[in-house]
């Protein structure tokens, strides 16, 4: 089957620094792929390229088999790839509804054809619908995101991905800085995305999360992919050792 996303020989240079030295990576429909690696391994650079935030210096990216170039996050979003960044995803002082619909607001024709009037009520109703789908019980869509718990914030970010109807959701350290209970909530959210038939790429330092969720794991080290294998049979300790050494000794 054609991978939903296929990277071939992706490189990225920042000035003299080579952050990615030719990475090949396939993401298959419906899987949860964990991408692991130490700080500086190139994880963030890789997802920034896939999400359109940065352009690759070299290599090729194929979406459903067809070559694509993303020049902006908007390009990636409209092609069905949504990325949920660790801290950058939300505007804390804006409401839940405003955050879910940021950049993809519901509008209704009114007044003049070129003036796009917001459908605020529609956005609140739809936002509540997305959160219900994710089984997150928040009722007031006017509430600013800064007054939500960490897990609820992730739910808002995921609701935004649902609104874009993203087929591929990339999550950058979704459980970092969360407590045990909140982490459990976010893991459930990710399982629900998978249950809806969406593909998830999970960037994580937390090996317990990876073991709990992933179907497959890719490990980056020094800007290269050194390991790419099914998760099956790995425990968190072995995985952590593999991330550290870059060697698969199973």
């Amino acid at each position: 089957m054609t991978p939903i996303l296929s990277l071939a020989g992706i490189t990225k240079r920042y000035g003299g620094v080579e952050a990615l030295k030719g990475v090949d990576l396939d993401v298959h429909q419906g899987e949860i792929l964990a991408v692991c690696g130490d700080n500086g391994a190139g994880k963030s650079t890789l997802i920034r390229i896939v999400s359109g935030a940065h352009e690759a210096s070299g290599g090729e990216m194929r979406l459903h088999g067809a070559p694509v170039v993303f020049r902006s996050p908007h390009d990636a979003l409209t092609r069905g790839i949504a990325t949920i960044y660790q801290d950058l995803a939300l505007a804390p002082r804006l409401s839940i509804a405003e955050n879910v619909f940021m950049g993809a607001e519901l509008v209704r024709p009114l007044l003049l054809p070129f003036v796009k009037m917001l459908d605020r009520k529609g956005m609140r109703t739809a936002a509540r619908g997305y959160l219900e789908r994710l089984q997150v019980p928040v009722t007031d869509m006017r509430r600013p995101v800064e007054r939500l718990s960490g897990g609820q914030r992730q739910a808002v970010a995921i609701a935004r991905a649902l609104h874009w109807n993203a087929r591929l959701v990339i999550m950058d350290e979704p459980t970092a800085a969360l407590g045990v209970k909140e982490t459990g909530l976010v893991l459930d959210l990710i399982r629900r995305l998978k249950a809806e038939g969406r593909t998830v790429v999970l960037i994580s330092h937390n090996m317990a999360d990876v073991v709990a969720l992933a179907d497959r794991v890719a490990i980056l080290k020094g800007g290269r992919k050194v390991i790419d294998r099914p998760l099956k049979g790995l425990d968190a300790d072995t995985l952590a050792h593999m991330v550290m050494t870059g060697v698969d000794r199973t």
Partner: protein
Amino acid sequence: MRAVFETWGTALAGLAVVLFFVVAAPNFASPTNLLNIVKETSFLAILALGFTLALITAELDLSIADVASLAAVVTGFLIHGGHPPALAVAAGLGVGLLCGLVNGVSVTRLRVPALIATLGMAAMARGLGFMLTEGVSFVGRWPTGFTGLARASVWGIPALVLWMAGAAAIALVLVKATRTGARMTATGEAEEAARLSGIATARMKRIGLALSGLAAGLTAVLLTASLSSAAPNMAGDYFLYAIAAVLLGMTMVEPGRANIPGTLIAALTLKVLGNGLVLMGAAYYVQDIVLGFIIIASVAVSASVMRKAPLRL
């Protein structure tokens, strides 16, 4: 209670100032004086509304007053030369808009911080104003078709008040009810999040700065029509007032965020304050001292509400 105080505290303080002058300042409460204050407020309010729109996208426009002076001089130059009022008005608005667009390009394309880009624009606008007038003013008996823009009344309501109400209504609808407004707000609130959500943040900043320039142009046209004269630096006094109005406005209605109703209430409050001080015989320089204090205190109040700096400039 705390929420009410955070939202309306400084507006109530403004009301207290009004009541104080009603009691203490001779003639303050006379209908003529009150109407004068409201009319005078319109220039300040429209200029400050523009500044508000730029600040909503988290960009400063320090050029508003000098751009307004330049636009006034261009308008006056054309009227004085016997050109049709429509042309003069279009030119005044156009100069404001053009300066705003240049500011927007400097900030987003050339990556000059707004503080620097608009300060530079202010200096250029001031210089151009003096160049055009050679330092003197255009004064004359200008056609009422032009001066009426500021001096006429419609159904007993002074035109200036209508201009202010219209500008405020348009700005409010833009910010609160349109997609562009929502994207400008998102850009100002969390630029990186907005960009990653697919919003063209640079374009939103250009729109904010362009509208700020346009508002300066409108202020200039109304000021010129109202005074029947145009002079370089004629809007100079509005600079501190406009900034103070926006920052004071940020302490109310939507605390910590530049907002249209806050700017309006604050503009009126400041004009009341200025007028009352004059009526009580305070020297002109007292106003500057008070304005400076209000600017600093307003940002401090916003910071205490938000528990962090409200402006990152």
